[in-house]
């Protein structure tokens, strides 16, 4: 009898509370930021199922939302270009109202600069630009540009050329035809036509922008097959200290540290990166079987000072050194010192003007183990002065104009008696980015380049058309078509080399070389809707006067010469998707076909088919988050002509096998600012039967682990 009585008392008590609660309210407040704690002013906060209940975050990202009843509810926070986040709030407890939104990796709201040299939202960029975001970089586990690009960009390979030096191959374009830039600045020094990719470490890089095809109308020489531009992060936090460490196979160690502050008119960030790996044997037959170990140290500092509104002064310095264990008696040493000053002035709200000076000195030396002497044998010093001007004519368009003046000095062991040469280069360019009518854009550019040594000059035009359709329901479409010329002036090395190749033959430069030229035609269509993005593009490149070394019978030596014309046709298809539930995928496929125009045997190194793929799933709670990603690439096999091993006159057909290689990575955010990475590289234990110079450098499945500490995060609410 007693139990039913108690039950009925409880039931009536609950009814009383419930009726009282029906009129009650509660308040949820907090702050909406991005993952880097930057406030997202204007972010919308709504209550699911309660129409008309919502608010907007203020300039500091703060909001206060009154819930009209005392029921639990799901509140949803959204902001353009970011993944929507939801959370359940309850009346009977203190609710955490802080949201750190993740950037929507498939949205096209990122600002890019490479295609037009002026900031432009990706979807509006008249030139198709591929962006690798800081999130992509963090989840790629890459130490340098080389590791990153092979996982993100189909059709790119880094292979070994002579002496295990690294050579880029972007759909048939080699190191001298792909222009690598840091914040739009050229990089001094090369080895066998390639810049030192170890210099391009990803510490403090905000994003990487890639424009395929010719871009000489803005960037001049070398922008024949593509431009890869690394954009440095601005210091936005009042202070930050980040530490990262990674340990992997072959005693591979990587340590990174960065510290920065931003106070009033001044901000500064300093970065240090150290990496090292041991020499190891791949344990198989091949063109190479020992992979040389090396040690790298890189330091960068960037100071920004804004003395008055509209004026921004940036100073930067950098030091880099690498030692390579190619020989027991001689260590190859590579060093670089760089610096730059830039003044940027905003002219009202309509334009800006920029004046910059940049210095880059890249040296190579031999460290003699026996005697301890360090003998310089190569030095490339570049001084560059640039003026850049942008003027916006309302919504009609933007005029960009500028010019560079550069002094290029080169001392090299490949010149007679280790001598030196230098030359001046000068250029001017102008571009008009015209919004003809809503959704239709025409961009035209023209650049003139002059090279003093042989009084060479080049005129590079570009024309781009874009048509954009935006529909709330159907999504956003962008159609682009462009023509761009790319060119590459012969370098001092290619004109004046006189190098004794192992006392067997000489390699001579050729002062009469013509500039290499490419004509690029591209058509593309892009579709974006909320969480999906699809891009299809096709291109056709005509390469003329390509510069290479050929056997010269008269000299009984190798000599630089312009080669037979060739064409490269291809297509790219990219699909990416990222759902709020945490599932994401990205698939990118590239087809390339290179052929000679005169029917001579093709020596193309472009693989016809290549694919990169990433599938990931991640969830995030207040104190814990994880992301599990599986990424991989497939490169098809191909056949090409190579010189027979006995001489440089007979060509033989060489078949290179295709391969696929995958990486599994688990990232765990275990507490504020602390995250742990666990990596299984080469998951399916791929091992080449024979290690060709373009085979992946792998010994099979390996493991690695990393730790990242964002100390500033630990002290922030």
């Amino acid at each position, binding site marked *: 009898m007693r139990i039913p009585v108690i039950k009925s008392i409880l039931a009536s008590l609950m009814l009383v509370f419930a009726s009282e609660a029906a009129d009650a309210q509660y308040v949820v407040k907090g702050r909406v930021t991005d993952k880097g704690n930057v406030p997202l002013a204007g972010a919308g906060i709504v209550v699911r199922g309660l129409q008309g209940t919502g608010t907007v975050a203020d300039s500091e990202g703060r909001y206060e939302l009154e819930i009209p009843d005392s029921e639990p509810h799901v509140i949803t926070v959204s902001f353009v270009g970011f993944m929507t986040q939801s959370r359940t709030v309850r009346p009977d407890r203190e609710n955490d109202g802080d949201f750190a939104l993740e950037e929507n990796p498939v949205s096209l709201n990122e600002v890019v600069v490479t295609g037009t040299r002026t900031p432009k939202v990706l979807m509006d960029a008249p030139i198709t630009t591929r962006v690798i975001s800081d999130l992509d970089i963090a989840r790629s586990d890459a130490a340098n540009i080389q590791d990153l690009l092979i996982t993100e960009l189909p059709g790119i390979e880094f292979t070994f050329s002579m002496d295990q030096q690294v050579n880029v191959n972007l759909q048939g374009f080699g190191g001298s035809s792909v222009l690598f830039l840091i914040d739009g600045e050229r990089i001094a020094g090369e080895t066998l036509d390639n810049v030192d990719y170890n210099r391009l470490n990803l510490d403090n890089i905000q994003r990487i922008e890639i424009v395929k095809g010719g871009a000489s109308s803005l960037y001049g020489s070398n922008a024949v097959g593509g431009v890869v531009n690394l954009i440095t992060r601005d210091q936005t936090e009042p202070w930050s200290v980040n530490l990262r460490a990674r340990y992997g196979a072959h005693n591979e160690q990587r340590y990174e540290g960065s510290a920065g502050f931003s106070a009033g008119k001044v901000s500064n960030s300093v970065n240090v990166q150290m990496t090292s790996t041991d020499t190891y044997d791949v344990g198989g037959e091949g063109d190479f079987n020992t992979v040389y170990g090396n040690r790298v140290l890189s330091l960068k500092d960037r100071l920004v000072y804004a003395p008055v509104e509209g004026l921004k002064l940036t100073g930067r310095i950098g030091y880099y050194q690498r030692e390579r264990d190619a020989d027991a008696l001689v260590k190859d040493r590579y060093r670089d010192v760089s610096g730059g000053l830039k003044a940027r002035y905003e002219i009202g709200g309509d334009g800006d003007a920029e004046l910059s000076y940049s210095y880059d000195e890249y040296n190579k030396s031999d460290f003699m183990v026996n005697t301890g002497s360090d*003998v310089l044998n190569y030095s490339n010093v570049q001084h560059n002065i640039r003026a850049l001007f942008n003027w916006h004519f309302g919504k009609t368009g933007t005029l960009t104009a500028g010019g560079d003046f550069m002094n290029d000095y080169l001392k090299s062991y490949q010149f007679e008696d*280790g001598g030196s040469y230098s030359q001046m280069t000068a250029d001017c360019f102008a571009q008009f980015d015209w919004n003809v009518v809503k959704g239709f854009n025409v961009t035209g550019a023209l650049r003139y380049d002059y090279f003093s040594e042989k009084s060479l000059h080049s005129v590079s035009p570009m024309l781009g058309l874009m048509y954009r359709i935006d529909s709330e329901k159907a999504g956003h479409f962008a159609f682009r078509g462009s023509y761009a010329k790319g060119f590459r002036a012969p370098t001092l090395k290619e004109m004046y080399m006189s190098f004794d190749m192992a006392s067997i033959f000489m390699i001579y430069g050729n002062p009469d070389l013509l500039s290499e030229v490419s004509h690029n035609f591209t058509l593309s269509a892009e579709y974006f809707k909320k969480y999906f993005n699809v891009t299809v593009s096709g291109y056709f490149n005509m390469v003329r006067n390509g510069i290479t070394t050929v056997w010269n019978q008269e000299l009984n030596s190798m000599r630089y010469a312009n080669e037979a014309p060739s064409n490269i046709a291809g297509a790219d298809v990219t699909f990416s998707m990222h759902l709020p539930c945490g599932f994401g995928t990205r698939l990118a496929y590239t087809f390339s076909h290179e052929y000679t125009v005169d029917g001579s045997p093709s020596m193309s190194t472009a693989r016809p088919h290549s694919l990169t793929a990433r599938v990931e799933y991640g969830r995030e709670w207040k104190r814990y988050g994880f992301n599990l990603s599986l990424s991989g690439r497939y490169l098809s096999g191909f056949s090409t002509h190579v010189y027979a091993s006995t001489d*440089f006159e007979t060509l033989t057909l060489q078949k290179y096998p295709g391969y696929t290689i995958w990486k599994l990575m688990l990232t765990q955010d275990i507490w504020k600012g602390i995250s742990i990475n666990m990596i299984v590289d080469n998951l399916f234990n791929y091992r080449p039967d024979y290690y060709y110079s373009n085979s992946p450098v792998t010994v099979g499945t390996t493991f690695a682990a990393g730790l990242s500490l964002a100390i500033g995060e630990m002290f922030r609410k």
Partner: protein
Amino acid sequence: MGGLYDEPEEVSEFGFVKTETLTGYGTVYINTSVYANWVYLDFAEAETVTVDMTAGDPEPGQWDMAVHRYDVKTNGGSAAMTSWTDIVKFEDSGDMPDDAAFVSDIMTDDVIAIDMSGMMQGNIVYAEDWYNPELSRWLDVDTSTMPPIYTKSDNVFVLRLPDGRDIAIRLDNYMDGNGTKGYMTIQYKTLTGEVEL
């Protein structure tokens, strides 16, 4: 960055650059970069003579070993590699390789390359000459790749001459101060037999 670097160590003097007369210990520095040349070493007189094969110059009257690029021949001797990497420690140990380990010269017609100018047409000119395969192990040159991969042996070799002398030989370097290959720095120590110096 100029201050970071050193001037290359210029050794203008070739031959027996360092000799200790009482102990018979010394260093030889020779230019073997020219394919047409043999550089003859005479440890007894501490002398080197360079002979151009293509010019038909005669070999010297007295010599112990000769070096062509990285190839070695002996004057009727034989050689053996030890497991030691330090000449002094090797001598102190008294640990001489077995007689059976000593390898004599062989006559070859495809080793001593004297003209490489036709190499890219598959046409290398070789001299018919003696070659000591054991002592030539002091430097392995893998020419299957370009540039060739050089692997120097740190080991001490023993050169056994017909007159009864044993000479410990160790290759210290095969490059000059600029890193140019074809310049051999050889450490030696006369172990037995009369030291005439």
